[in-house]
């Protein structure tokens, strides 16, 4: 009996250890300090953005340099929900995802007319246009930005329960809540990407990535596929943006649409870790955070180093650090490749 499966032994180990990790991570606020919570929040949100960009560029072949448009519009939509509509900040987060989804439709309509490298610059231009337009939005502070009102930040749903649970102050409770939401988001996004890649859509994506013509000839609708991936990625990026700026509670066009923070760092994480794998961004974000902590006092040298490392990785290990590990050890923690299993054929190929 031969069966088509994606299951590997390492994959089974992952399936067992990941829930354990999640439970430990959920309980962590009871032990860890506020500084650790903030660091973890940063790591988790960057990992979310990296997984999304990896889905776009590594699997979907859509090298967007304009994801900061969706981070920014998501964050601004959340602020608009809180300040203009008087919503609870946590409930306003989905508004961020929705706004990003809405922005993604004209963006895709425009950018999909452009091929390859044109596409990259086209998305960048749209991000710039979005930033310049949002900077005209006087109700949300225009070019200088604004903060979440104190009434809103002090009444975020769930913080009272967290205060009672851990006996912490209001600001710390807000960090714990943001951390939990980031944890939920990263699990949902990573799990979602993993599920997507193992589904029919993932098979189609892999086919398109390897050979567009061959994929079309067996009935893959490449146009619809690109739309689907782009819209999903935009909505998830918008949610992440809203969450990031819920935690900072202060927004400005420069910060919300920052090229360095929301696309350069994200690209470096994916490239250094290993593009086109789920493990890559996870490894990449750890390397990124370690570098950032080590070079924190060195100002711009840190970004310069990061850029040069990305260039060196691209030149000598285009599959990133995880690619090196996987090719040496054959390890796949999140196996997506379909393999045929069954009895070995003696003397066969």
């Amino acid at each position, binding site marked *: 009996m031969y069966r088509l499966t994606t299951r590997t032994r390492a994959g089974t180990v992952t399936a067992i250890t990941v829930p354990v990790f999640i439970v430990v991570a959920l309980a962590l606020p009871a032990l860890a300090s506020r500084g650790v919570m903030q660091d973890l929040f940063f790591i988790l949100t960057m990992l979310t953005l990296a997984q999304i960009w990896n889905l776009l560029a590594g699997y979907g072949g859509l090298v967007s340099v304009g994801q900061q448009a969706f981070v920014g519009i998501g964050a601004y939509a959340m602020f608009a929900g809180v300040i203009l509509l008087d919503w609870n900040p946590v409930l306003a987060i989905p508004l961020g995802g929705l706004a990003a989804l809405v922005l993604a439709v004209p963006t895709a309509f425009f950018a999909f007319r452009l091929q390859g490298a044109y596409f990259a610059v086209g998305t960048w231009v749209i991000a710039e246009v979005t930033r310049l337009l949002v900077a005209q939005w006087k109700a949300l502070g225009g070019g200088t930005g604004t903060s979440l009102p104190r009434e809103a930040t002090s009444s975020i749903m769930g913080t009272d329960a967290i205060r009672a649970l851990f006996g912490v102050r209001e600001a710390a409770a807000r960090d714990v809540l943001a951390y939990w939401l980031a944890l939920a988001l990263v699990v949902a996004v990573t799990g979602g990407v993993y599920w997507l890649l193992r589904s029919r859509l993932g098979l189609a994506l892999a086919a398109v990535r390897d050979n567009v013509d061959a994929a079309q000839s067996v009935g893959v609708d490449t146009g619809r596929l690109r739309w689907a991936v782009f819209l999903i990625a935009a909505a998830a990026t918008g949610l992440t943006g809203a969450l990031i700026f819920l935690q900072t509670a202060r927004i400005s066009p420069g910060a919300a649409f920052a090229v360095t923070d929301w696309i350069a760092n994200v*690209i470096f994480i994916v490239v250094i870790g290993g593009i086109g794998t789920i493990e890559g961004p996870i490894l990449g974000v750890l390397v990124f955070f370690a570098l950032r902590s080590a070079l924190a006092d060195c100002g711009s040298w840190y970004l310069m180093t990061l850029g040069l490392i990305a260039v060196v990785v691209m030149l000598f290990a285009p599959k990133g650090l995880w690619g090196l590990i996987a090719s040496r050890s054959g390890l796949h923690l999140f196996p997506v490749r379909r393999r045929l299993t069954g009895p070995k054929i003696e003397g066969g190929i």
Partner: protein
Amino acid sequence: MKSIPPILEWRHDKGTEAPSFARAALSWPERGGAAMIWLDTLVQGALLGGLYALFAAGLSLVFGIMRLVNLAHGDLIILAAYLVLMGVTLLGLSPWIAALVAMPVMFALGWLLQAAVLNRVLGKDILPPLLVTFGLSVALQNGLLELFSADSRRIPAGALEGASLDLGLVTVGIMPLMTFASAIVTIIALNGLFYHTALGRAFRATSDDAVTAGLMGIEPKRIFAVATGIAMVVVTLAALYLGMRANFDPSIGPARLIYAFEAVIIGGLGSLWGTLAGGIIIGVAQTFGAALNPEWQILAGHIAFLTVMLLKPRGLFPRAVD
């Protein structure tokens, strides 16, 4: 005695009023001045387009020959501007001589960049070159920031800085005029190189089909290195004008890249005159946007680009096929 005052008045009229007629008209909208303002905006915008075309010419050359999108192009312009500035401040050279000195340095840098780095990642997959040049862009930007600080600098141009030329209907600055003329000369020179020299023939052959060109005894990788070197010479010229016309600091590279890229795409792949047209469209859109509201300057340029892209996704004058 009675006839003198009118003559004096007449002379006075002819001598001082007439030359400033254009400016007088500008300040009196009821005398058709509004039209003059728009004409002035149009001319200033077109001249600004010359600067953008200079930014874009090097990018267009590299893009046309090897389909390489160099995301570090803007930061290389800023690097060249600092090189010229160092020539002026440290060596005491005039900006023009400093640029002449910087050109071979930038050529060597471009050649090396292409030979040592970019040639390794060129291929069917556009992702590696995009990511490598993106990494370079960030590294270069932050390296410049460490070396030269975030202070904005300017290349001193002496008497040229404020000089202007009265063309009757409009008054134009000497510097923008020289920029525009340089853009045209650069494009003529590059086109001459492209269509009338052996090197240009090799460029075109490699652009059309690198593999077949290789069979005919051309080494595409060496051709690519020379092309990037030449692009860096053009970049130095662009940097000279950028630095003399306005303040610059290490962070402004990416914005120049975007303007340059918009000009290239509007113009159409492989057409240098198209690139000039693209630069003029961006420049005119920006000055008109700024005339309406200073905050709209950059936005108007981008919107012009998006509009052209929606109407003509391959640009206005596409020559090469993607």
